[in-house]
């Protein structure tokens, strides 16, 4: 079942088995992915008019794979291919499997791809929605703002970006690298309807994401205030868990801390 504990368990299991990192980034968006896949796009992921989900912060792919797996959209066999030689699930998502619309990994591209999907829906008078999950540091990329201004100009009201505002990036705190300040105000300034939300509060996330159903002309930016490494106490806000993989002891401690955190 797709719950905030189970998605974290799958993330930790696969990361440990593959001895790969990016764990903190995946844990950061775990609750966003639970709400998105359980409450918003469930039952709408098949066929030409499916909802599109684009994981622009591709390095958090484990959260995407885990959400797809736990919602029955990705088989266990496929999940076990994660980082295997010749496997279809890499550290970053690659297209060609159900549930992955675009290969990502180069930051700042997903919103443009998604804007194209949303524009196609608008041109064809189709009903699908397009959801993009961006990192906060992707707001360093100029192209993110090219896409943001374009989407607002074209009234892509069925386009939603969720910004994972955990205030950390690869080499430090965003405030110390490129300070982003009030991200809601920034997205509003380029014409989006933007809301601040606790990125670990399922009810608040669902309410925010459901604003897409209001059928307005503005695209929707959900600024999700999150904690890097959320749910595994010793990883929270710890920069090393951007890249590090877990030792046997780390893994045991991480699993035991699931569901017991604040």
């Amino acid at each position, binding site marked *: 079942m797709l719950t905030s504990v189970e998605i974290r368990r799958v993330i930790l299991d696969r990361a440990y088995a593959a001895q790969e990192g990016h764990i903190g980034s995946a844990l950061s968006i775990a609750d966003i992915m639970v709400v998105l896949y359980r409450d918003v796009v469930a039952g709408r992921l098949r066929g030409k008019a499916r909802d599109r989900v684009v994981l622009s912060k591709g390095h958090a792919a484990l959260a995407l794979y885990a959400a797809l797996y736990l919602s029955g959209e990705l088989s266990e066999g496929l999940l076990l291919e994660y980082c295997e030689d010749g496997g279809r699930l890499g550290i970053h998502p690659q*297209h060609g499997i159900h549930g992955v619309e675009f290969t990502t990994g180069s930051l700042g591209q997903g919103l443009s791809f998604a804007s*194209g999907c949303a524009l196609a829906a608008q041109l064809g008078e189709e009903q699908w929605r397009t959801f993009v999950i961006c990192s906060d540091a992707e707001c360093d990329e100029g192209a993110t703002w*090219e896409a943001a201004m374009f989407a607002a100009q074209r009234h892509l009201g069925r386009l939603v970006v969720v910004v994972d505002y955990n205030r950390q990036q690869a080499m430090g705190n965003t405030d110390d690298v490129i300070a982003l300040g009030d991200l809601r105000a920034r997205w509003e300034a380029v014409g989006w309807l933007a809301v601040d939300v606790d990125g670990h509060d399922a009810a608040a996330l669902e309410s925010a994401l459901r604003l897409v159903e209001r059928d307005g002309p503005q695209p929707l930016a959900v600024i999700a205030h999150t904690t890097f490494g959320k749910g595994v106490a010793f990883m929270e806000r710890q920069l090393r868990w951007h890249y590090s993989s877990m030792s046997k002891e780390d893994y045991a401690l991480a699993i035991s801390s699931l569901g017991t955190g604040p």
Partner: protein
Amino acid sequence: MRAAFVGALQRLMDEDERVVLLTADLGFHVLEPLCESHPRRVINVGVAEQNMAGVAAGLAHSGRIPFIYSIATFASLRGYEFIRNGALVHGLPVRVVGIGGGFEYGAAGISHYALEDLGVMRIQPGMTVVAPADGAQAAAALRATRDVPGPVYFRIGKNDGSSLPDLGGRFRIGHVEVLRRGGDAALLVTGAIATEAADACLQLEALGVSCGLAMVACLAPVPREDIASFLGSVPVAMTVETHYIDGGLGSLTAEVIAEEGLRCRLIRAGVNSVPDRYSGSQRYMEHRFRVDAASLVKRILDAR
């Protein structure tokens, strides 16, 4: 060439509802007829080539055939990684239209000279690369590539005046068009500079040099067999392009000569340094880099 290409694109948009034209705020006094006839499907994305390439991938992913339009250097280089990670990686039918190859923007300077567009595009597996000689061939190339499932790059000449009547608008994917055969030397040319190469051939003929001419409007897929067959037993070949000598037609031809074990010597006429810190017209720059007809004639004569 540009007017003919845009005219052909208009007909394509008339026929095919899937076609969408995105421009990065260029095409003033050129694209207006398309804006009028297809206002919903011609979209100015603003001065934002990266996003244009990304949006195109999203559109193509959802069943559209987007053309993205800008000056060749901006169209090819500014959004290159978006083209790579978007249309190329996903095998999507995005059409990248780069206007004005080489020195066609004259005194506008280095920022406006596309001198590596063909090279950066042709090294990507799955990219079809087209650089026609004139309007008729550009229109033919647009028709011929209509159903190519992956991306296509078009280097389209800005000027509408010149044409290569002998070519008769022929274009085939993966082939060259041979305009004349000669036993003493052979020219291979790509893009709008073809008229200079054709002129050079005529001048050489008058001087008693039998010089062949092949128009290489399709650089990828590589017209390998055609080039090998055209060069045959010719002792000296010269490639002609308004492009850096590395990466474009010269490199492509060198690869074919080496891999096919041909015995001909190769001269690569093209741009061999960064044209920076001086200004000049297209004609001046082409002469300075010795790709105008008179220079080409001299280079062939010197090589014999």
